[in-house]
């Protein structure tokens, strides 16, 4: 599964668990407009750390906070390219 697909399927799963109606998961979607709240993102990042072995937002001080879904996916893709960040 690609990183992006892992991320979007986890977003969908969390939205289902929390009974949230999601905006369409397109690249330009602003994350805060997706319907997910801070706690949902906290859950998402924790689950992705277990699945992908990295939390790019904690692992490096240089990572900016993501605005769009694309930013979010890129943060994980970049972290995967940097072996020192993965657990």
């Amino acid at each position: 599964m690609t990183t992006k697909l892992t991320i979007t399927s986890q977003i969908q799963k969390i939205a289902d668990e929390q009974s949230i109606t999601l905006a369409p998961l397109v690249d330009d979607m602003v994350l805060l407009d997706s319907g997910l709240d801070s706690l949902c993102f906290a859950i998402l990042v924790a689950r992705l750390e277990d699945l992908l072995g990295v939390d790019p937002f904690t692992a490096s001080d240089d990572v900016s906070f993501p605005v769009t879904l694309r930013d979010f996916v890129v943060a994980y893709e970049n972290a995967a390219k940097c072996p020192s960040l993965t657990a």
Partner: protein
Amino acid sequence: MPQSAPRSLRDWLDDGESAPGRHIWARHASIALDDLAHGSSLGGRALELHGRSVLVATSHQLTAALALIELDGVARRLVLLPPDARFEHLPAVVADAGIDAIVSDAGASDHGDLAVPLHVTCSPVIEPMTVGRLAPHQTEWVLFTSGTTGAPKMVTHSLSGLTAAIKRSQNRKDPVVWGTFYDIRRYGGLQIFLRAVLDGGSLVLSEAKEPTASHLVRLGKRGVTHISGTPSHWRRALMSSAGDAISPQYVRLSGEIADQAILDNLRAFYPQARIGHAYASTEAGVGFDVNDGLEGFPASMIGQSGDVQMKVVDGSLQIRSNRTATQYIGGAVAALADHEGFVDTGDMLELRGDRYHFVGRKGGIINVGGLKVHPEEVEAIINRHPDVRMSLVRARKNPFTGSIVVAEIVLKEQPESGGAGAQVGALRREILERCRAALPQHKVPVMISFVPALTVGEAGKLARPHA
């Protein structure tokens, strides 16, 4: 000590040095502070509240702000009801705080059932009128502590204690416009409200449920210069598409541990701004500000003499100052300070090099985006499942909310090796369903792992890591 102890909020507003054009802006309404000097938001009924113990139970922050300004120095006691107060706790609040008057607004719930003789409505429209004055009271302010289990705890403060950390700016020609992500009916937000009133500034209020981007655009439109929130608020601001709608001179973080990542991100995003993080709590008051851009604080601050004295006892920060609350009220509650006047904050410190770092809360209390979670209340729900022997709920670090709640569970019987996956999956779902039914969302464990055993200490208690 402040430069001169404030007599009442209204006296500060009437201060001749203050710049004209000051406002408090809410999302859908605003008021000019000058109007309040010659008018009333209480229909001229402030004098009826003279000497009373008044519960300020408004649905909007703007009306709460107006009531506070009009009643400080008039009421004997002002009890500020937080936005998430539960109705079933109100009779105890009324009894414990000796409430004999309620100020509410048009949108507030009906408090007619409460045994309170006087009800006064506060309106966001100021009616011009001559407001009489009686002998001023040193009003006692009562705030609710955040996020404990069961009935909320109330603490008392004086206006001089609440404002002791506020330094009036030298240059009053460039008026400050304060903004905050907090609600002003809690300690962190109240500090910002008081800063705006005392320092000749204006204030942009937050509103519950308003999208972050819309709030930021509104802050930008009002030209916010100074703005405060928790690290979680700021992460949301940076993640919104409207972080660049504001261009503040001062960015303040408090209420949660400010880590290096959020400090660095804010410095990169708002290069023109001073970035500071502050330590404050409802009980301990404003402790200190850290303005060197680094997480934690210099160890040299511990043990210094001065307005705020701090010590570390068993890893926990203790503070003594004229800014701390004076006492708890109601119920069978412990003394707020020890015999030397130190308040134990329950915030645990670790010395790394020449700086102290906050590592969590005493007793394992978990802070999820500013909301406190007692592990025991979550464990109690989990332990009710017939297959569970014991559980440990603890914090896991998280870049979006500071911490999240995770649970480790020991089952009465280890799952059989064949078909264990399905069995464990079903159990996990059952336990989570129970938690979701019984607990607010932030208290539900995000992860559940099944472990063969948990460490139990010599006193027979679960070994808890600091949250």
